[in-house]
């Protein structure tokens, strides 16, 4: 994993930040990566106000870069910790960072990186089931058929994701018509 000198340097700058603030900084960094927290929260934070803002900016951008590069390179928790040990950063912080990284790695990869890449999930197979609705606890005498459709999609790493939805007869008819058009489009082209 290649990192610029300034990024690596930012980790050693952590020594200038009091330990009590480390956890807060980490939660904000991961919050931003998971898109749960806006970057402006960092300026608003009371605990982080005590730190010199240039120092804070350097450390923050260094952390974000390191985490994203690590996810890109598919490093697991241990490899990341190993890599960080060589960079002169406080050991306690390395522990906190690797643990948080291990927990959120999959989610950040899915929300951020896979959507900006160009591998889409592939449709593999379909399962369907037809039921006849008689009644529910809210309403009786429904007497309508319903279809449950299960699409199997395969992601890049081979994992299968199931996409489930229901539809009534009219919606299924529309769906079949749309798909038939799609299939016909290819036939008329070739």
């Amino acid at each position: 994993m290649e990192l610029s000198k300034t990024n690596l340097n930012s980790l050693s700058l952590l020594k200038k930040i009091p330990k009590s603030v480390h956890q807060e900084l980490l939660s904000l960094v991961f919050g931003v990566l998971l898109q749960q927290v806006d970057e402006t929260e960092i300026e608003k934070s009371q605990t982080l106000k005590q730190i010199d803002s240039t120092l804070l900016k350097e450390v923050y951008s260094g952390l974000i870069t390191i985490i994203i590069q690590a996810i890109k390179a598919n490093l697991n928790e241990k490899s990341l910790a190993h890599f960080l040990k060589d960079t002169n950063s406080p050991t306690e912080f390395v522990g906190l960072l690797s643990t948080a990284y291990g927990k959120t790695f999959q989610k950040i990869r899915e929300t951020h990186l896979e959507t900006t890449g160009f591998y889409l999930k592939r449709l593999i197979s379909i399962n369907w089931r037809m039921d006849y609705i008689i009644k529910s606890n809210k309403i009786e005498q429904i007497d309508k058929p319903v279809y449950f459709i299960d699409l199997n999609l395969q992601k890049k790493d081979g994992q299968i994701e199931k996409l489930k939805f229901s539809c009534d007869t009219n919606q299924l008819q529309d769906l079949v018509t749309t798909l038939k058009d799609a299939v016909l489009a290819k036939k008329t082209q070739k």
Partner: protein
Amino acid sequence: MVIIYFNNEQKEDLQFLQELSFEVGSKIVQVSIDFFKGNYNPKLLQNVSTKLNLPQLKVERCVYGLSYLFTESSKLSLSKSDFLESINAISPTKEIEECLLESYQKNREEMRRILSEMSLKLPSIDSLQWRLDVQISSRRTSNEAKPVYLLKLKTSDNRTVWFQADYNELESITNQLEIALKESKSQHYKRIKKYIK
């Protein structure tokens, strides 16, 4: 023959309607219909009770009782005779009886629609959009012409899923779904439908 059963509390609350004039009674019925459709406004109840010079608690409980009546009767899809038989338990005046029946018949379909929205269900499909592309080259291969379908599926819980499929897969799922659709016209389905009715 299906009737709604009222417990003693509800009977008491609804018998309050007897003490009222027809105009007042029908206003309260109207309020409970609106209540059911989702326009619940506690201030409105307050205004109605002060305008009609009635104790607010009694009006409120009467409205709840009426909502129960309309919910159950729509849920069970009561026929006219069953509905009249059910409200006999609270012995309304002839005019109130007609007013209740009319409100029920007028609003039944809409109330059933609201009830089915509230029922248990999986997210349903909103739309499926597709696009046919030809993959010309990629990092590992070049000078090929592979047709690729790009699909976007939207479901009613506001989820949008993008995925791709090749021609064979798309053809096979289209066939599968056509078979599914044919099931709704099959003998077996018609038999079940008849038996359940």
